[in-house]
């Protein structure tokens, strides 16, 4: 009779009271048996007591962890306790990664238990019987899902503080679940988020081996739920995960749980990970550990070293500093090389010569050199700051962004023509004849030197994009402080020759003496600038088409007229008063096309996108995905009209008949992405390869598998070999998971 009643109550979703100490009757629900259990046979006053919700899943069925993954819902408990008692949160044991087709869930299967600490106050009366009640809500799924809930009671005697009651029958289950709780650890963490990837580096004592290891974020909307990759290197563990499609930048540190399942043994660790730039991130300033490993040095590059860095091995902190140092030195060298670019050299060689004139006034020369340095560094820092701010605001931009805006390209073309005309002698920049650096004593020299530095940066910017896109692109993937440092080094490199000249007058003496030849030299130097303007106009045509470019060319003609007109006025003593406003009006007219440019810009992309009979098709993420799904070999070429090395590669390695034959013979699809104008999809794709600029060449082998990235300078042989490998199939075991 009693058991009949129990069955009836059970069917109604109600639960009977406990039959014996510490064990309530298990409740059979659909595909899941739930039961409220305790670790001990009694509750001890004045301390935490472990209770737990036992979940016994039918084969193939599962319930969910606190972060459920792609679908599902975490189990939820609501407690009803005697007054003054408190229930802690669920102490989630290590979850499993459960695959459902292409979806991934985090949860539990088979026999599982969710422990909860129940705090019994010290004044609870020993000898009394207490009833603990929980309302449990769960979602149990195989592929289909069934929500369930139950009210579960447990009656237990209360014993005095300090007593040690015997284990209950469920103690084994409770203890097993407690042992599977992630153990809090204070490893040093470092996050490198690049586009679609999130890399988390862990360092510290007691790192687990990377095999049989999995990692989960407790908070959703950070990491994607697909399997992560974990590797050990240099005494650190690196966890690489795809970014969640529903990513929201964490505003506080998030929790990463590592789970190792090996030979039936489950161990788990939990570490707090500071997100770079998040408020409250402990790692925004470095906290050196008491172990004295000197982690403070690495702070410039890692904005997210979190507390507990005590155990970080010194070797790895040194490596970060070396990485940054190398990047800075490379940028410095790059800046130096920029001096030789056709858009920069004419301006700077003249600057060097005016310095030579001032060799007799070393103090003034030094001041000028420093002002020039400040100008160049300021220019690059501003450019980088603008770019970082735009990226921070969510724009998908990379280095070269300054050439992706037609207006800026047109402005640069105007600037090149104007400077060229000045060198050709059509007009003089500045009111006084004799050019910059004339009045050294009154400080005007320093000011003009600063602006020359700024100008050098501006004129260098079109050249820096095609030649230095990759290096700067890497800098952009680094934390802001490190990125700015690299850009500052670039500016310093650009300014270096002039600074050296100004500080070492002996060198200046080796320069040819100023004289009449300088005029001829200036005339000559105008031509590289005109040619740079031609190149910029060509880029513009690719961006906005011939019609809109024609307006810019008309504007250029008016600009030339305005400058010539202005130049004539400069030579005439006592020029008529009307000349000034007339010149200004002409100049305004010349600038008009720039203002209407955004409206004029009609994308001629259609003409480029898919020329019939071309070897290649336009790249889209969807097309690449579709081809990859079918296991087709694919060659991806990311290019831009303003990218000189891209164009060189196309001429040298990607336009021969042999190349075409190799593609056809191997059945390789050739997808080309054009980054001449802004394209967020391409920027994201570049970021997947930790790039922020073009060119990028990727070869995907037949049948899936790891794609191969080709170097930035191609040779026909190199391309041929890569394509042959791709046509043959995956050379390395594919990481591709076979569909379930």
């Amino acid at each position, binding site marked *: 009779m009693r058991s009949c009643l129990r069955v009836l109550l059970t069917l109604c979703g109600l639960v009977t009271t406990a039959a014996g100490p510490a064990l309530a009757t298990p409740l059979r629900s659909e595909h899941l048996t739930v039961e409220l259990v305790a670790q001990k046979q009694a509750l001890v006053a004045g301390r935490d007591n472990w209770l737990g919700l036992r979940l016994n899943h039918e084969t193939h069925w599962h319930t969910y962890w606190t972060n459920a993954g792609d679908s599902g819902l975490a189990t939820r408990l609501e407690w009803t306790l005697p007054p003054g008692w408190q229930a802690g949160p669920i102490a989630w044991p290590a979850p499993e990664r459960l695959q459902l087709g292409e979806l991934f869930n985090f949860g539990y299967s088979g026999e599982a238990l969710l422990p909860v600490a129940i705090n019994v106050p010290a004044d609870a009366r020993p000898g009394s019987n207490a009833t603990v009640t929980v309302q449990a809500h769960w979602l149990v*799924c195989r592929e289909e899902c069934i929500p369930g809930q139950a009210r579960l009671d447990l009656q237990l005697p209360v014993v005095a503080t300090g007593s040690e009651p015997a284990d209950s029958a469920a103690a084994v289950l409770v203890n097993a679940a407690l042992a599977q709780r992630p153990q809090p650890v204070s490893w040093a963490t470092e996050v490198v988020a690049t586009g679609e990837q999130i890399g988390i580096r862990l360092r510290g004592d007691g790192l687990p081996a990377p095999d049989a290891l999995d990692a989960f974020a407790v908070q959703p909307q950070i990491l994607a739920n697909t399997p992560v990759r974990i590797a050990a290197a240099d005494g650190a563990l690196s966890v690489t995960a*795809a970014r969640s499609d529903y990513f929201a930048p964490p505003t506080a540190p998030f929790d990463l749980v590592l789970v190792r399942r090996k030979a039936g043994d489950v161990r788990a660790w939990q570490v707090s990970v500071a997100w770079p730039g998040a408020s409250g991130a402990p790692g925004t300033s470095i906290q050196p550990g008491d172990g004295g490993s000197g982690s403070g040095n690495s702070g410039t590059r890692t904005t997210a070293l979190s507390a507990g860095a005590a155990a970080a091995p010194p070797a790895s902190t040194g490596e970060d500093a070396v990485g940054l140092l190398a990047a800075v030195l490379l940028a410095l060298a790059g800046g130096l090389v920029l001096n030789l670019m056709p858009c920069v050299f004419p301006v700077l060689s003249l600057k060097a010569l005016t310095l030579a004139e001032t060799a007799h006034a070393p103090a003034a020369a030094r001041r000028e050199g420093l002002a020039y340095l400040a100008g160049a560094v300021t220019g690059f820092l501003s450019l980088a700051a603008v770019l970082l701010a735009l990226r921070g605001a969510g724009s998908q931009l990379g280095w070269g962004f300054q050439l992706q805006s037609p207006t800026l390209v047109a402005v640069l073309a105007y600037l090149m023509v104007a400077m060229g005309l000045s060198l050709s002698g059509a007009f003089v920049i500045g009111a006084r004849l004799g050019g910059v650096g004339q009045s050294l004593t009154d400080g005007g020299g320093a000011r003009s030197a600063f602006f020359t530095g700024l100008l050098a940066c501006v004129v260098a910017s079109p050249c820096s994009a095609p030649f230095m896109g990759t290096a700067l692109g890497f800098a952009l993937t680094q934390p802001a402080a490190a990125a700015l440092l690299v850009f500052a080094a670039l500016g310093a490199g650009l300014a270096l020759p002039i600074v050296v000249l100004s500080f070492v007058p002996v060198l200046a003496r080796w320069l040819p003496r100023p004289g009449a030849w300088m005029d001829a030299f200036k005339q000559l130097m105008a031509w590289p600038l005109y040619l740079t303007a031609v190149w910029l106009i060509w880029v513009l045509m690719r961006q906005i088409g011939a019609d809109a470019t024609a307006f810019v060319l008309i504007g250029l003609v008016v600009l030339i007229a305005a400058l010539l007109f202005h130049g004539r006025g400069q030579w005439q003593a006592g020029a008529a008063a009307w000349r000034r406003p007339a010149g200004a009006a002409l100049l305004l007219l010349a600038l008009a096309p720039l203002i209407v440019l955004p409206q004029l810009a009609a994308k001629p992309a259609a003409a480029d996108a898919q020329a019939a009979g071309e070897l290649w098709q336009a790249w889209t993420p969807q097309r690449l995905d579709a081809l990859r799904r079918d296991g087709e070999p694919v060659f991806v070429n990311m290019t831009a009209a303003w990218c000189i090395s891209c164009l060189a590669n196309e001429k040298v390695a990607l336009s021969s008949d042999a190349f075409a034959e190799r593609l056809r013979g191997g059945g390789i699809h050739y997808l080309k992405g054009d980054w001449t104008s802004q394209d967020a999809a391409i920027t994201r794709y570049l970021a997947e390869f*930790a790039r922020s600029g073009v060119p990028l060449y990727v070869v995907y082998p037949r049948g899936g598998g790891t794609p191969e990235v080709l170097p930035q300078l191609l040779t026909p042989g190199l391309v041929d070999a890569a394509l042959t490998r791709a046509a043959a199939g995956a050379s390395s075991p594919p990481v591709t998971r076979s569909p379930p």
Partner: protein
Amino acid sequence: MKLIPAMLAAALACAGLPVLAKVEVGQPAPAFSLADSNGKTRSLEEFKGKTVVLEWTNAECPFVKKHYGSGNMQAQQKEATAAGVVWLSINSGAPGKQGQLDGAGANALMQTNHSAQSAYLLDPDGTVGKAYGARTTPHMYVIDGQGVLRYMGGIDSIQSADTADIPKATQYVKQALAELAGGKPVSVPVSQPYGCSVKYGS
């Protein structure tokens, strides 16, 4: 400098993992065409100029039942379609899986539910679901008249299968539609979708 090759290697390795396609708010929504419950082919292109809501659904999923059983989903469908919005329910369940329907079944369901979507689209091979990366039922997307994705995620802000939570939750799709109609940016453009898994075939 070891970081660079390491990062590259990691990026490469992960690029090889096939995942559901990615769509992104602010980017053009993938084009598609599917047969509706009456056998007529409907495409996203067809609705150019109109705001389109996509709702992944499976009538047997408890989370879908939560929003249909309470009338929440139907009310939102009525309100949206009355304002000229196109509401497409999509079933990406594979044949034989829970909740998968043929055209007649879908028509019967709409009748019993009193639902007010513009069309019920059948995606038995899951292509469109996968192109959008649809994970759950319900899983919601809002596309503006220019074909640009403006919202993706859950139907509302409280992840539960409990009808009682609906009045307390922020209804994200409703909110996004109101903001779009008012020419305002969508204040919550992305949220975590919640529900049952979409029952794709393998």
